């Protein structure tokens, strides 16, 4: 029996490992989403000189759990006169598409080797990976448009139409702004794009694509913020203008699905920025400076110690138990990385990539707390009359320089 | 894992889609539905072209499909603009009601 089981495992290894990776990644992404909402509320609050959530659990860390519970237990009314099929389809589509796009992102260069089988970090490495991501972005317009229309109400319809028109307009600038990166990399695969930047890894920071392609990066980031309907481009879902835009008539779990879809697409865009323009899993230090490999431990150990120190003096008993526990775990991870250089080498790539993704998420939240929003006509004029010509100029300049260099 | 699909299967599938498109074109009464059945027929032809491109290992079949997609996009834009213009004057999208040129 054991023999036939191991034989079955060995034959269908790829499928089983892919299923395990998918389940793990969905779980991780949903948890990151939840704590991204916590992070956003805390950062925006501190930018506005207030505390943010700090009652539910130590430092408000259980706030996402409370929010999730609220979404699950709230009443779920279906308004009268909605087109039932599209009303239920729209949040499903939005969430499914947003979660699918995470499958294409590679999280680390080296595979884990288990029983002689290699497991790469990342569910699939398509050789048209970037094109598939744009395909998913193109399809996410449906979630918004159908949600707005099926709600049988004025505000969602207007919000949905405006939002989908905005998404379609900025899609062009989005896809054209990365053509410069593709010309330099020669391939659509995300791993190849990072590997081309790794050719000059001894230059460290300056090998990244952002320096030759600074125009492309600005175009891409702006268009991506507009695609994900975030501030300053979030007029279609702004509360003071349009009640809540296309998701007005959705409540409890269906609204949570739109919410999760928005934050997941934020994570996807941050990962794409990090991979295409900022070197992905490459360290900003030159590859010859091997002493920088201790940087993860150098960050984790003091942070863990600080969490322990803060937790010991925390006001609630629950905080005084949980926070030192979390701090201990972080310190132990940092110590393990110093003790086992094999794990340390493996963890370098994912550490830098996750750090960059975290940085871009912070920029997203920073913009939310600082910038006012565009008016709708300003938004459309900006997309068509400024970003699109800028992206095209970037393509022309990049191809000219590459052709002249030979 | 090594069961191969004959090319004729793809061609028959395209023929099925094409004939469903023809049936929809003749049966439906809504202008936009008729237009969508035209798109369905174009897609069936695209599948035929890609199947033949695979059979002959030529990539020009795929480029033909690319051009068909571009022309379909242009045609959809103009066609839907015409439909909007018709709706503005006739207030209906039923093809049986826009037969003003008939005696």
């Amino acid at each position: 029996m054991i023999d036939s089981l191991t034989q079955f495992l060995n034959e269908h290894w790829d499928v089983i490992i892919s299923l395990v990776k998918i389940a793990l990644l969905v779980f991780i992404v949903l948890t990151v989403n939840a704590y991204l909402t916590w992070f956003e509320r805390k950062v925006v609050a501190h930018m506005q000189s207030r505390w943010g959530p700090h009652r539910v659990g130590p430092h408000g860390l259980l706030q996402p759990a409370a929010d999730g519970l609220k979404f699950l237990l709230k009443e779920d009314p279906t308004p009268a006169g909605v087109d039932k099929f599209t009303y239920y389809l729209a949040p499903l589509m939005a969430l499914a598409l947003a979660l699918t796009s995470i499958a294409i992102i590679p999280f680390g260069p080296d595979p884990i080797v288990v029983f002689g089988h290699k497991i790469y970090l990342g569910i699939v490495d398509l050789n048209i990976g970037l094109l598939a991501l744009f395909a998913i972005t193109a399809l996410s317009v449906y979630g918004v448009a159908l949600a707005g229309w099926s709600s049988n109400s004025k505000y969602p319809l207007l919000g949905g139409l405006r939002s989908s028109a905005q998404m379609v307009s900025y899609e062009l600038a989005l896809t054209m702004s990365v053509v410069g990166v593709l010309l330099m990399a020669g391939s659509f695969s995300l791993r190849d794009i990072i590997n081309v930047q790794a050719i000059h890894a001894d230059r460290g920071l300056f090998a990244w694509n952002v320096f030759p392609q600074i125009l492309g990066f600005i175009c891409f980031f702006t268009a991506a913020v507009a695609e994900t309907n975030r501030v300053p481009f979030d007029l279609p879902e702004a509360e003071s203008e349009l009640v809540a835009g296309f998701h007005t008539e959705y409540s409890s779990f269906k609204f949570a699905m739109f919410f999760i879809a928005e934050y997941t697409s934020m994570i996807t865009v941050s990962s794409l920025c990090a991979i295409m323009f900022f070197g992905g899993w490459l360290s900003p230090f030159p590859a010859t400076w091997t002493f920088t490999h201790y940087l993860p431990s150098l960050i984790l150990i003091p942070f863990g110690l600080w969490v322990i120190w803060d937790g010991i003096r925390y006001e609630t008993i629950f905080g005084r138990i949980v926070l030192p526990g979390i701090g201990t775990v972080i310190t132990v991870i940092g110590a393990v990385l110093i003790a086992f250089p094999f794990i340390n080498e493996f963890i370098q790539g994912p550490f830098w990539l996750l750090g960059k993704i975290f940085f871009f998420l912070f920029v997203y939240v920073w913009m939310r707390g600082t910038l006012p929003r565009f008016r709708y006509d300003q938004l459309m004029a900006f997309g068509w009359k400024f970003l699109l010509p800028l992206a095209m100029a970037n393509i022309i300049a990049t191809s000219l320089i590459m052709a002249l260099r030979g | 894992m090594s069961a191969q699909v004959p090319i004729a299967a793809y061609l028959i599938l395209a023929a099925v889609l094409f004939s469903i498109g023809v049936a929809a074109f003749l049966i439906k009464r809504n202008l936009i539905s008729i237009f969508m059945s035209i798109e369905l027929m174009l897609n069936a032809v695209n599948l035929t072209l890609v199947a033949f491109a695979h059979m002959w290992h030529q990539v020009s079949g795929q480029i033909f499909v690319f051009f068909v997609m571009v022309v379909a996009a242009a045609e959809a834009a103009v066609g839907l603009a015409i439909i909007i213009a018709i709706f503005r004057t006739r207030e209906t999208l039923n093809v049986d009601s826009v037969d003003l040129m008939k005696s």
Partner: protein
Amino acid sequence: MQLALFMIFGGLAVLAALNLLLQRHPINSALSLVVVMMSLAVLYWSLGAEFLAAAQVIVYSGAIMVFFVFVIMLLNAGEEERTTGSRAAYIVGFPGAAAIFCLLSFVFLSERNAFGSSNVGGYLNHVTSNISEVSSLLFTKLLLPFEVTSVLILVAILGAVVLARKEQ
């Protein structure tokens, strides 16, 4: 595995096309057509045309069908009614479509041995990727049709703007 892909996505395409035929509200037909197009994209991928699969999803389902859905939403004409014309259409429509299907399948089936079989992913393990092959042909030998199609799109944009404009 290619057989499983073909059966699942081919069946899905046929079911969605039948749904397009049978639904009364145009929005449901539009969504069924999106399902047809995405199933066809998977079938293109299995035939080795990966660029076309992505272009099918981006251009056809992601742009053209979005346009259809917008127009249906904006015009909001509702479900279609049964009129006298539709009775005659039933008598002509189904037999006509059946005749075309029989003719085409007869031609394809009688030549099925000459067609041969397909390869999973179809020669995707070449040194040059599918995109390189397509683009090297498109931008060298077929450059003139490529530029002509860009002029065609420009003409279509101008035509659509003029036709859909409100009369002043």
